[in-house]
């Protein structure tokens, strides 16, 4: 940073920036414009920000020079200046005003040349809002900027969700909205956007850029996990996984973080290598417990990673694997019995089960175990029936443990 900046130099730099901006607009150069609008990615000190600091009257300069952009440029400069001085809340407010003005103009442009810039604005406003909220929360104020950004992006979405070439840009904004809603915990707001994306005729999903599609699928897949809609979640997350850029491992990991529990719940187990490659070791024990029928291990694993799993929202999904572990246990007993006593292989005494569980350190009385067996049968994890009188679980002789085959429990 220059220790001292003359007024003339500052004036020149600001003028330079303004000219480039103006030129980008008049030349319909979306990429150039987008780069000029990237406020939050700028370091604390840039030539421009120094100039703005040295030339406090920049707002008037901008509006004098480009009167037709007077509702845009001064606010944008203010946002840049506030951001460089780390006043994020102010920066957000100014940027939102500038963005509104920009959106206004954007609506009037027939061609989508400025789509890139619009996306930058959408991204910037979210990032700025997050910073602003952090700042507000630190100072004990109500962090409401992200919410405001959400409603602004809804406006942007409205401007893009129209017939014409602009619509391909809508999914990007949708994804930004998802990010905001997930962060705010107001994911139910996603529904309206999803509906317009998936039902509106003017959208053909395949037309959207791949990166947006992947993001979109990732978020909608997560939503389905919340709803315990495992088949749809599997489908969406798998799409995201397949189409995700294989280079971006962090993105793949994020997808797998949700895809693995979903797959587990429909009976598909990941390899150890996969878990290790993407550093998803927290699932390793769970997978092991599923293969071994080790109920104790499952409970331990859930306990150990409880906070993490609760936070990501897959805890409840994994918790439901319990029945699968029981099934595995019964299956193991069945296999052992078949080796020992083939004639009675399909009859499993309740006592045996209770003993097994006790051996695993799980204290359950007969009624409870009986109930679990009933549930396994009821949920089609086991074929057979339970004879209450003799306390025997009678397995079907044909395929007593049907594969889930993608069927959720």
């Amino acid at each position, binding site marked *: 940073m220059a220790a001292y900046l003359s007024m003339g130099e500052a004036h020149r730099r600001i003028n330079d920036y303004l000219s480039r901006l103006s030129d980008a607009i008049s030349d319909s150069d979306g990429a150039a414009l987008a780069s000029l609008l990237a406020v939050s990615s700028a370091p604390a000190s840039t030539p421009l920000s120094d100039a703005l600091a040295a030339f406090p009257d920049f707002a008037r300069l901008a509006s004098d020079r480009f009167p037709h952009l007077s509702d845009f440029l001064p606010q944008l400069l203010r946002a840049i200046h506030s951001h460089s001085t780390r006043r994020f809340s102010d920066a957000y407010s100014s940027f939102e005003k500038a963005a509104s003005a920009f959106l206004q103009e954007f609506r009037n442009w027939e061609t989508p040349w400025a789509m890139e810039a619009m996306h930058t604005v959408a991204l910037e406003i979210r990032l700025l809002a997050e910073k602003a909220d952090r700042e507000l929360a630190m100072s004990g104020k109500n962090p409401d900027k992200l919410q405001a950004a959400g409603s602004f992006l809804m406006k942007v979405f409205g401007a893009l969700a129209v017939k014409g070439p602009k619509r391909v840009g809508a999914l990007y904004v949708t994804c930004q909205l998802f990010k905001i809603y997930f962060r705010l915990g107001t994911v139910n707001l996603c529904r309206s956007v999803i509906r317009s994306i998936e039902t509106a005729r003017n959208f053909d999903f395949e037309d959207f850029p791949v990166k947006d599609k992947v993001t979109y699928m990732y978020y909608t897949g997560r939503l389905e996990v*919340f709803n315990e809609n495992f088949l749809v979640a599997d489908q969406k997350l798998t799409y995201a996984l397949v189409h995700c850029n294989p280079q971006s491992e962090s993105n793949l990991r994020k997808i797998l973080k949700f895809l693995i529990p979903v797959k587990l719940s429909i009976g598909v187990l990941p390899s150890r290598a996969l878990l290790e490659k993407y550093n998803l070791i927290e699932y390793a024990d769970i997978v092991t417990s599923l293969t071994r029928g080790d109920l104790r291990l499952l409970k331990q694993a859930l306990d150990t990673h409880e906070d993490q799993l609760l936070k990501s929202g897959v805890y409840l999904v994994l918790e439901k694997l319990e029945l699968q572990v029981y099934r595995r246990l019964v299956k193991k007993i069945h296999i052992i019995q078949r080796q020992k006593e083939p004639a009675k292989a399909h009859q499993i005494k309740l006592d045996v089960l209770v003993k097994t569980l006790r051996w695993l350190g799980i204290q359950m009385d007969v009624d*409870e175990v009986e109930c*679990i067996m009933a549930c396994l049968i009821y949920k089609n994890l086991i074929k057979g*029936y339970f004879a*209450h009188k003799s306390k025997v679980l009678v397995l079907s002789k044909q395929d007593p443990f049907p594969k889930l085959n993608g069927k959720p429990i």
Partner: protein
Amino acid sequence: MASHGAAAAAGSDATSVEVSGMCQTNQPAYPPVPSGDHSWSSSTGAATVSWNYPVDNQSQAAVYYDPQRDVSVSGDNQNVASSVPPVVQSTMGLTSASQSHVPYSNSLQHGYNPPEYTNYYYNNYPQTTNTSAQQGGANQHSGAAYQPLTSFQNSGSYVDPTSNTYYNDGGHQTAPGYGTNNYYYQHDTWNHGSSENNYAQPYQNCSSSDTSLVQSSSSVPANSFSYQQQYNQWPYYYNHSVPSSAGNPVAGSSNTDNRSVNTVSSYSYPSSEPPPPGTTSWKSNSGPSVAPPVQAPGVLEPQNQYVKPAQEISGFQYQYGYHAPGAPLSQNYYANQAVYPQNTMNVNHVPVNNHGDQHKSGSLTTDTSSENKVQVPVNPRIAPGFSMVIPKSEKKILGADLAKKPAYVSVSVPENDAKAVQHVPDARSLPFSLRNYSMRNLNRCKDEAQKVACQSIIQEITNKAISDGTLLTKNWDTEPLFPLPENLLTTPETSSANNSSPLSTSTPRRRLKSRWEPVLEGNVTDKVEPVAKALMNGSTQSVFVTSNNMVNNWDAGKFLQSRHTPLNKITKRPTKKQKIGSYSSPMQNGNTSSDSDKEQGLTKYYTNATALANSPEEKKRREHRSKRFEKGKDSSSKSRSSAANKDSMAHVRARRAISALVTSNYEDGGSLAVEDMDWDALTVKGTCQEIEKRYLRLTSAPDPSTVRPEHVLEKALSMVDTSLKNYLYKCDQLKSIRQDLTVQRIQNELTVKVYETHARLALQAGDLPEFNQCQSQLKRLYREGNKGCYFEFSAYNLLCVMLHSNNKRDLLSSMASLSKEAKQDGAVKHALAVHSALSSGNYVIFFKLYKQAPNLNSCLMELYVERMRFEAIKCMSRSYRPTVPVVYVAQILGFLRIDTDGSVLNGDDRSDECEIWLKAHGAILSVDNSGELQIDTKASSTTLYMPEPENAVAHGDASLAVGDFFART
């Protein structure tokens, strides 16, 4: 007449007067002592009445007395009062409107009775007694006859004194409506008094009135929820009262008459011309046998006829009472309907004459005439009389206002003035308005000395204005009248006076200033008081006259209004607003005003809610409100009477400042954001000492006199804790406690305790919505660091989410928010165990946990038991073959209680219960070889179903069932 009117206004004084004779002269002679004793003792007639009264009361009380009443009615005192009329009056301190009513009724009855109908005499007596006692006997009667109503009546009776005062001082919006109700009920009660046979009547009347309300003005929602509606209703009530008086003669409970506004009109007819309806009514009085053909449908037994006179009288009384108390209110009405009053006046006169002639009681005639005027107000149609009457009334009113105003200061007047101002541009009226202002002030003066003092004050004011340069800019019409040098008076008239301006009458317009101007704050009670004082001072005549006029105007206005309302919604609305303003002012609560504005916005909505007006719910609500106001009145009146006038003035000013603040906020921004308001400045500090208080959702700013301070709330909470009453009562009490906490912004351990108590009670009663309200508040309170049973409620929260909301994300966040310590807590552990039982569908564990549930976890689980059992039986019928013993199922699904040693307790009973349940859910049972009952699982698996809950209600809340309301306390 004039004297009577005055008496009415004066209240106790009036009664005494009446008793003594119909003569005006007598009244002045009587000392206007507030205590009822005086009134009783004063006249022989009264004395007899009094004697009768106790008897009646007792008998009635014995039969009808509702223990609940006491409970419901906050003031035990009130009850006492009812039993002992004198006490009531004395306690009131203020001459209550009801009292004033009484006198009227008495006088009327007397007149009737002595001259012509000895037979009726008897009837009249009861009436008089009732009237004197007012609510005591009569109310109880009604109460007995009709429970839901009782509450009303009770409130009415208690309120009456209070309610009237309430109008006067309370200024609460609701109050008026209730007051009317009360009156109305009183009618009924009166009827009762006259003839015991009529018990049913009150009920009928009530219902009829309700229906009539609805019918008469579809546009005007009857008793519906909003206060504003109630305002609308006023006219109704009036109508009712009128019709009842008219129609009653024919049939004690002439529903037909009451039903529609038309009846009112008919009534008016009679008034204008002696012949048909009017005559009938009168005749009915004279001869029991005569049943007016017009009202034929309603013709009842002879007894009814007896009742008739009484009813008529009562009707009169009602109106009277209204007038007196309502005077302040009348302003509003007046303004809207100014034109009409005149007509009514004329009409009234005519009937009056008839009365007088028939009865031939000379002394009474004057009284009756006045009364008649009051009652009659009926026909707007009769235009001719108009102009004539109006001027008179106006003048009188003015006089009265002036005289009375001092106490209230600027209150009612400013409003009216403001209206007037609107009509007349300031520029033109400037000199004139100032003159008016001084005139107004001067007119208030009772005597020369005061006048002189006033003049000097006016001079000062004028000089000041000149020096300020505000002489021309000041809005003299809105300038509050200064307090009279001597605090004498009441304002009701003032309002009417303002109304008198022809302009103001017709239209609803916006006031220049906001409605809630502090100015409005005059208290009805105060007004009444002044009147009484005035009487004492010996300036009875003029005051009386004015009051009478006032009354007349009032009635007229109301009638007019009532007529208008159905026709013209627009007019209606403005009136309401004005009323609100006036009411709020009496409340002395500047804050009130702020909210009343919003209310107005809601008026329409409420209006639309008419359909609900007659629902038991609504009735109950009304009851609530009325009771509440009672209390409010009580306390406020007391404080007022006790406080020196100057003090009260200061109080008013302080309030005004607040209200001004609010007002300015509203005016400036129109829509000033809520956050921008200075809540600290508006936070209420309660002064109410009542421990018990019914819940009423606030529709205006809280009145400190009805808000209990923290230490009282603590007592209230412990009262609720130890109370043996049912949940509905406790819920109501707790809600009022919560409200008081909220308006005072008390957030501490007590708040937590209150919410916890309420949440637990709600859980025990299975009232999830209420529980959720408390729970969300508790979450916030805990988060803000208030100590409480955090773990216990964390467990409830978990259970609630997992069992009743089925929202996975909520459950996740609830679980994620649990701290390590919380997870070690027994209750939380239990809740988590329930969760895992649910997630794996383990019904056995679920029901085990259900039995071991700590705290009230079982209450939450209980709500899920039915579903869990059904799930379980579905599961069992699917997985068990070939059968499952019913005893086993009963034990597993919590039908059986297992003793600690494992033996089954009451096994047969429980498995019977299980069997019934199974059958109800479509399970197929069979008996095996050993004679044990088994479930045929294969057959059952296809026949299971979830039966419709037997006690299901269309609206989904069985606790809202109609029958339940009658059981509520």
